């Protein structure tokens, strides 16, 4: 993954799409990939039955077994390597990048924990490489609780789910947005563990510019998490409650800064 190149900004690049029927996801995938094609990205559709996508010479298709082989042996790092390879290959062949639509439903049923780790890694890769990804999840096969565990790892989605988003930013920061409270507490803890963040220079920098609420327990848990990584939590937010909380709790290892 040496060939790091800033992706174009504008269109959402790591999108979670919950769908009710294969037709619905295929229509969404086609629109997503068409947008990629307009930016001279290669278009790739990955699904259990990719041939179901109506024949389109501009869109390559692949089976899930090539990118997200399902089963308990699923390896997130290896899967990311496959997407990296495909992105590199597209660029070597003259495309500006790779746009991929992938149906993750079966993997979510078989190996949710590893898939969640993969989704974080994919988001991290997307933030710094010319890859855009649409991840599909079939509502009729996945309950809301399982879906929430992956929805929160995308920068965009067609469902609100858990009320917060956690993903990598383009400056090696963590992006945390939405609202964090008792309802999201368990999922946030689970997601932080799966993300396995790596602080830079003793600081866990969180871009919380789109954060609109967090309660005191969440701030304490985030501080504890940063402390467990031997780092200081740097929360960049313009939500006035964060600075107020940090001041009143007088908790060590937390610095609240204005969002840029």
């Amino acid at each position, binding site marked *: 993954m040496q060939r790091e190149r800033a992706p174009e900004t504008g269109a959402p690049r790591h999108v979670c799409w919950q769908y009710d029927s294969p037709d619905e996801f295929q229509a969404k995938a086609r629109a997503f990939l068409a947008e990629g094609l307009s930016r001279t990205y290669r278009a790739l559709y990955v699904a259990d039955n990719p041939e179901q996508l109506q024949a389109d010479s501009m869109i390559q298709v692949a089976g899930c077994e090539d990118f997200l082989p399902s089963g308990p042996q699923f390896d997130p790092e290896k899967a990311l390597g496959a997407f990296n390879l495909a992105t590199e290959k597209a660029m070597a062949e003259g495309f500006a990048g790779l746009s991929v639509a992938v149906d993750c439903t079966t993997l979510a049923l078989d190996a949710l924990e590893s898939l969640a780790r993969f989704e974080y890694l994919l988001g991290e890769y997307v933030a710094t490489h010319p890859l855009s990804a649409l991840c599909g999840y079939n509502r009729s096969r996945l309950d809301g609780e399982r879906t929430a565990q992956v929805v929160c790892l995308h920068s965009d989605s067609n469902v609100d789910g858990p009320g917060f988003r956690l993903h990598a930013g383009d400056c090696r920061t963590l992006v945390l947005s939405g609202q964090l409270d008792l309802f999201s507490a368990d999922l946030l803890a689970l997601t932080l563990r799966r993300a396995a963040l790596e602080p830079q220079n003793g600081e866990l920098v969180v871009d919380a510019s789109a954060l609109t609420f967090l*309660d005191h327990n969440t701030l304490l848990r985030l501080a504890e998490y940063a402390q467990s990584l031997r780092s200081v939590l740097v929360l960049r937010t313009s939500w006035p409650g964060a*600075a107020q909380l940090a001041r009143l709790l007088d908790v060590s290892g937390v610095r609240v800064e204005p969002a840029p």
Partner: protein
Amino acid sequence: MTAGFVHPAVFYRSDEEYLAMLRPFVTEGLAAAHAVAVAVPGRRLDLVRDSLGDLAHDVEWIDMAEAGRNPGTIIPTVLRRFADAYLGRYVRIVGEPVWPGRGADEYPACVQHEALINSAFAGRDITIVCPYDVTALEPRQIADARQTHPLVWEAGERHQSPQYAPQTAVRRFNLPLPRDSRVAQFVVKVQRDLRAARTFVAEQAARCGVGSRTADLQLIATELLSNCLRYASGDSRVRMWCTDEYVVCEVEGGGNLADPLAGRRPANDGHGRGLLLVNQLADLVRIYSSGHGTAVAALLRADRQTDGET
């Protein structure tokens, strides 16, 4: 100095009597190498400070009108903050939480605070003397002080208070806060409702003209509702209304607050911080427990900005 907790009410009728009783309390404490703090409202702070000359440098001065505007914060953020900084050393504090001009809404919280000091500091080597202005306060308020203090100091004498009954005082002032007829209400049933409850709070803050305190109000409502969701059964309700002086955010749930010192212990005590945080964010907190549940009302002064704002 007697070991253990000493908690006299000091009844004064003039500035001269005020100084005659309190100045020696401070100077004798300093002479005995005690840690001494004076936490009284503004003008009285100057009065004592000016009487001490250079000795004033050895005393911690706290404007109770500001630090103690919410009586619920006095134990954790004024008295224990000072006392806990001098563990192992005898501590003397002058603390005046009741003064003429305290509003009718504030007074029940003041009496409960005075009563709860006794259990909060039981067994500790501390003397907290509480001055009461007997010429300006009402006779019933002086009677309340006799119920919340085991000792009384008056000009020329010190004696025990036969009326001392702090738990009775806590119960007598367990009073519901009167609600405005234009109260708005939102019902919370499950954790997922917290987000909608905050939207409701933001809308009501805007309606009351205190949009700048939306974050404080959302924090207050969320912390109180979270306690209900964790510890109480049944639905809980967040209500908001505004008066000429305050915007009120009240949360009522089915649980009973078994610990009378909840929210009155410093954060590092290992207890839940939610109610303490509410106490710190609000200008006044009133707690009413009935047989059906508990209502916690946080009152924020409509003209007061969030700390740090200009």
